[in-house]
């Protein structure tokens, strides 16, 4: 890339009318992504957006890039084919909790296991939106939906735990209304070599409104949300006076300045630690809710391993073409 074209977010807007419900966090996600792409230093024609089915999956139509609006649950599998066929492309998978964790659960775990360099943006609204309000694999126990009128009896997946269980190397979580951090995280997810999973806690204004308000509303979010950054102490609160410490193998919220606790006692976030123990604790924490890049561990990707092996076989093999094969 010698001559880098300077893009603005407008270069990534398509001429299609955006048809999400007014007030939906999906608008924030769209704009944040359109702002993130110009920062990546990649020619526009090399981006590919692949989606499945659901509200989230309308996303590619609104981008002025290459894309496929696929079938329910299969975005990760389609994207796998795109990336293996041409590793030079930058591939995003735009998906939801129903698309990726229910019908597409198998593809979701296997794509993560293989560590293909895909960027999965998972819109988690804990509900089925496009089919108008049934419980999803992330809906809470007791949640009343059209198919659980007396309360949901099925326990939810935690997206982060599922990702780590599937050998996930990169996991980030971000609030659906947090445009600034979304843009930052999308850029980092793209930079990361390997499968990156970004869980966007996206509010569905129609069928599950307020699901995240207790930690995302502007006036209270500083007290209930901890945005972690690698190498920095895990401090939160409006006055930056709260933090996390490790106490008897458990994470504990402490107040800086109380009980002799000072800033240097606060746990430093190590996103690069291959061990999943603390990352899992951060993912499971209920108050504060942890956002930011929780895990980012570089390992060889599938494409890198594939390319290396192919190179090796090519060096050794006398068969270079079809004619060599059949006249062998």
């Amino acid at each position, binding site marked *: 890339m010698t001559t880098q074209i300077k893009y603005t977010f407008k270069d990534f807007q398509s001429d299609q009318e955006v048809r999400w419900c007014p007030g939906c966090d999906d608008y924030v996600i769209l704009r944040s992504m359109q702002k993130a792409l110009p920062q990546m230093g990649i020619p526009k*024609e090399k981006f590919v957006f*692949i989606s499945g089915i659901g509200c989230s999956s309308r996303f590619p139509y609104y981008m002025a890039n290459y894309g496929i*609006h*696929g*079938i329910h649950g299969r975005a990760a599998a389609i994207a796998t084919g*795109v990336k*293996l066929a041409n590793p030079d492309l930058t591939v995003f998978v735009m998906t939801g909790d129903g698309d990726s964790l229910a019908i597409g659960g198998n593809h979701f775990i296997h794509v993560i296991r293989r560590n293909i360099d895909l960027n999965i943006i998972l819109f988690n609204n804990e509900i089925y939106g496009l089919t108008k309000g049934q419980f999803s694999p992330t809906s809470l126990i007791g949640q009343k939906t059209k198919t659980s009128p007396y309360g949901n009896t099925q326990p939810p997946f935690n997206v982060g735990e599922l990702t780590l269980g599937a050998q996930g190397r990169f996991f980030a979580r971000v609030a659906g209304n947090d445009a600034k951090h979304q843009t930052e995280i999308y850029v980092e997810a793209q930079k990361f070599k390997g499968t990156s999973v970004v869980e966007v806690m996206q509010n569905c204004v129609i069928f599950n409104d307020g699901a995240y308000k207790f930690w995302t509303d502007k006036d209270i979010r500083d007290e209930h949300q901890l945005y972690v950054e690698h190498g920095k102490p895990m401090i939160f609160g409006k006055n930056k006076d709260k933090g996390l410490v490790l106490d008897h193998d458990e994470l504990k919220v402490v107040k800086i300045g109380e009980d002799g606790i000072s800033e240097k006692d606060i746990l430093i976030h190590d996103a690069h630690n291959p061990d999943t123990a603390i990352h899992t604790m951060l993912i499971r924490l209920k108050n504060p809710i942890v956002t930011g890049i929780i895990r980012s561990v570089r390992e060889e990707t599938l494409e890198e391993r594939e390319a290396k092996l192919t190179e090796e076989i090519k060096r050794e093999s006398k068969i270079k073409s*079809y004619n060599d094969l059949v006249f062998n």
Partner: protein
Amino acid sequence: MDTKTNHRSRKKPVEHLDHVVIRFAGDSGDGMQLTGTQFTYSAALLGNDVFTFPNYPSEIRAPQGSLYGVSGYQVQIGSKEVDTPGDKLDLLVAMNPAALKKNLPDLKKGGMIIVDTDSFTNANLHKAHYESNPLEDGSLNDYMVVQVPMTSLTREALKDIPIDSKSKTRSKNMFALGMVYWLYGKDPKYTEAFLRKKFKNKPDIVEANIKALKTGWNYAETLELIPVSYVVDEAPHHEGKYKIINGNTATAWGLIAAAEKAGLKLFLGSYPITPATDILQELSKYRQMDVIAFQAEDEIAGISSAIGASFAGKLAVTTTSGPGLALKGEAIGLAVMLELPLVIVDVQRGGPSTGLPTKTEQADLMQALYGRNGESPVIVIAAKSPADAFYRAFEAAKLSLEHMTPVILLTDGYIGNGSEPWQVMRLEDLPEIKPPRVSKRLENWRPYDRDEKTLARKWVIPGTPGMEHVIGGLEKDKSTGAISYEPENHEYMVKIRQEKVERVADYIPVMETEFDSEGDLLIVGWGGTYGALKAAAKLMKEKGYRVGLAHFTHIQPLPQGVGKIFERFRKIVVAELNLGQFANYLRMKLPQFRYEQVNKIQGLPFYETELVEAFEKILKS
């Protein structure tokens, strides 16, 4: 006395045969597939025409001696063209009582049986559900039984070779092979060379196997029970280089050839399923030719990854068998809607559900044609023989790429696993493949603009600057390609996708018949039954009937000229391995004709003799 095809002279009188059908049968661990393959290669290298069919159980290693653990390998060798592995056996090699019991019904009256008497123990007889020993109770009086204590003779011959006792016993298949080589005057030198190569780091194993092979040969020579030996003369020599190839390998090679011819890389997204797995395994070997063989987490991921690869500009393929085709249905619909090239290979097996995984059937035809939601037309073609699978795979790729539509290629377990000589094709001698692929900017281009003749849209590859576009499963506007729910636009798009497939009839060969072009009976078939139907037609001709054979490799669209052929025969019979799916399809497409049916649904191919019987019955009625 003929010694021409014989590296050492045999001392007994020699009888000449046109063709001979042999089956090697034993426990699934007895090495019968290897034994059969070796015999086939030697016969072919010595000039015979050959056609083989392995018959193996679903169980990988069923309990020793059990009926359901019997593995068989059948081969027909001939001094004339052979079209099938043969109906009835001239020789059955049975390594244990279960193999005898299971295969005896297929042996000709008066045929020869070679048995390993050492395996006829009370325990094995019991496992094979024999009440008394068939070698002693007179139940085999109609056959020529050659009783050989094969295990003990092999062990005795190998007693000085320093290998374990199990390996000695295991060499008995080479003893059996040696006997059969003697019987038909086949030089064992190719097998000796094969063994030296296969076990090149295990000289003792090489020695043991070759010793067993020679001991078997010599034993047959001296055994008084075998009064004669046979010879099947060389078939007429064809120019060029031949390879014995099974249908699955031929399919894989046809795809490799098509990719190279089109200047594309080959991408296979697949999931293991019997009997299609061999194609995935074969293509996994060719990284050096940039073949990407991706073993996915399931059937759906197999085809979905292939759709992604097709979007990214590769020749994309997915391979499966019946149940897998069912799982891929929705994704095939997506490929129809996206109008991307994609080859779907269905190696049919007995169904429904898990059905008969290792047996053959032709019952996926309707699924291939119509097994999707909505109006979802695809090109459907079918390979007629193991070697033909090469050409049909090549053609499937060509049609898919040039017409921008999915193609389903139907083969089946019988031709996938069966093998015959294939004349090796040079890449230069295969037709050109010219996909409408675009990797530079075009002015005024829209994603669903179509070629006037083929109706194919352009294949614009991601990475091409200025051509960014999104395609998807939602209905799209006929001109812009944007999402459209307009009623009339949808009808237009449904019709144009159908029309695009129908126009392929202009790009495939006009229908032809073999044998008579008019007469009493037209035999109609499709796909893997070709060999049996051809053999039956030959027999009908020998009996003086005026018969034609119209064998279809193109199902959707049908080739041109079918009606003109059909009207020249008094009767039309459609013979297929299902309840009449192609017959019903023809009733829909060409309703002016009356179709008789011959159907078999036993997981087995047609036998030529049963076909002749059925055809004669139809002619008399």
